[in-house]
């Protein structure tokens, strides 16, 4: 097996994000993910800087590297100028390139992000757009989104736009521009990464005996990865009475 630390060092974000870590733990103290998940960025960085293949391999297959929310608060606070968030981004990239991300419940979710966000970018030129956010699939968006989603044309017109018009908010991105995006994806690595995510996900779906389709989000494996929750990720829940007492 190739030396994983050397592979990480090929990522400029890793080179920039990790000098010598002195294990002070300030990153963990400031980290929103560490308040919610069993997550300790200090420990992740400390494990990586051992440079040991088996330890880095363990991280690439772990749930741990998928807990960070990339707020990058750690960058502001590290007294050594390190960025655990960038180390995480390099680990995630490598985990996907080598196909290890399907070994964890949280890692398998990358398939859904690639299909949904990646698909939106290439099909529409937006990461998200109002017409791809079905209000039935997003109850957390509340009653205003039900109204908005049901009346997209009117809402946009009210705010001075034209849905899929020639200019302004949520204009239709021209086909030749979408072609340029696709070519950029081809030459700069996104297409290759998408293919790696697809290949490993299809293999995992087959291993688990779950329906997989070559395109789109209407398949059992997509539904499985976005909703699976072992319940083993979070720190202990705040007790209801403690929550009430704090208010």
């Amino acid at each position, binding site marked *: 097996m190739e030396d994983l630390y050397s592979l990480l060092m090929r990522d400029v974000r890793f080179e920039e994000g990790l000098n010598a870590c002195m294990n002070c733990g300030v990153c963990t103290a400031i980290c929103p993910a560490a308040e919610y998940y069993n997550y300790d960025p200090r420990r992740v960085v400390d494990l990586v800087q051992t440079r040991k293949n088996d330890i880095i391999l363990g991280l690439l297959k772990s749930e741990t590297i998928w807990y960070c929310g990339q707020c990058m608060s750690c960058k502001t606070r590290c007294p050594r100028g390190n960025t655990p968030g960038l180390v995480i981004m390099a680990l995630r990239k490598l985990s996907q390139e080598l196909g290890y991300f399907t070994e964890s419940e949280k890692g398998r979710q990358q398939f859904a992000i690639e299909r949904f966000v990646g698909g939106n970018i290439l099909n529409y030129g937006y*990461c998200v757009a109002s017409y791809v956010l079905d209000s039935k699939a997003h109850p957390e968006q509340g*009653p205003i989104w039900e109204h908005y989603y049901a009346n997209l044309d009117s809402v946009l017109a009210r705010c001075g736009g034209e849905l899929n018009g020639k200019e302004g908010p949520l204009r239709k991105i021209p086909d030749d521009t979408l072609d340029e995006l696709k070519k950029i994806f081809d030459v700069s690595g996104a297409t290759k990464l998408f293919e790696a995510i697809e290949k490993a996900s299809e293999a995992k779906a087959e291993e688990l005996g779950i329906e997989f389709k070559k395109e789109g989000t209407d398949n059992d494996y997509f539904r499985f990865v976005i909703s699976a929750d072992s319940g083993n990720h979070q720190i202990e829940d705040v007790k209801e009475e403690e929550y009430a007492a704090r208010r």
Partner: protein
Amino acid sequence: MQPEGKKRLWAEYQKSVPDDHFFYVRSCIRQTFFPGSEQAFLKIMRNDLGKDVFEDPRHTTCTGIGYHGDVIPFETIQTVVARQFSLATEAGYKNIAISCVTSFGIYTEILETWKHFPETLETARENLYKATGRVFDLPESISHASDIIYKFRDEIAAKAKYRLVDVNTGKPLRVVEHIGCHYAKMFPKHGIGGAEFPHVLVGMVESWGGDIVDYPERRHCCGFGFRQYLVQANRGYSLSSSRKKFESMEPYQPEMIVTNCPGCAMFLDRWQYVISDLDGITYGRDGEGIPSLTYEEMAGLVLGYDPWELGLQYHNVQALPLLRKIGIKADPDKRFLAKDGTRLPEPANLINS
């Protein structure tokens, strides 16, 4: 301390924002959830301040949500941003105005990377040329759109029809300001006031008559967390972060929240609805929710824009109590109209409605 020393001490917290001639790049989230805000920014800039803001409809997403969702490689997002620079170069613009805080963070990250690792700039140039035949000049400046409104806050104050003051009591409104994490936590020198003393929204609020609420979790993330919201199974992360902020700000009885990040504005609204629906809890006074506004909406209100054309009604937490306090007479029955002007059914269970 001598004024000279003070000036030197604060120099690193200053940011130079150009006076005119901007190339504007939109935000996927702001276009989706608060399209009136971007339109208000353009109206304020062009009509109220007489500035030149150019937009090329061929600009696209920066791919930032995909990048921070870890499916878009760094080399790809650099090339997409290089393409935006190419459109600006083609149009003769050197100042980039960025609607989105995630995009803004990405532009700062890319420009800093190109500076410290020059070979990455060459790769981006090669990739862009190979894919599209395009070339580009580096911009002379990048500003978040809130930087620009901040710069002209006193001009806006001079034209204001309303102030952030309760007309019934004469007291300044108590405002919570929330800065998107990627505005300055990564590269403090690119933000007004840096990461320690972000002043971009404070300056607007204070210039327009309001008071800022300081509270313990003021700088905590709203909880977007990219994959932590994008994936259904992870959304508890996002909700928990916002709840932590609401609980922290509640004792100070804020009357509005204002943000400069499209995602934060959305989450600080949506999670109030979820908490209200699930637990029956609201965080404002007298059982009300706290309206969560974009800074463009706030600026538009101050300048006397129609609240319903700004899109203020498209939040779960309605701004009606806030409008009454400011003294804006807006007909609630005109909030939800169809394209042809007929009334659509009012959504049920909105907060403050």
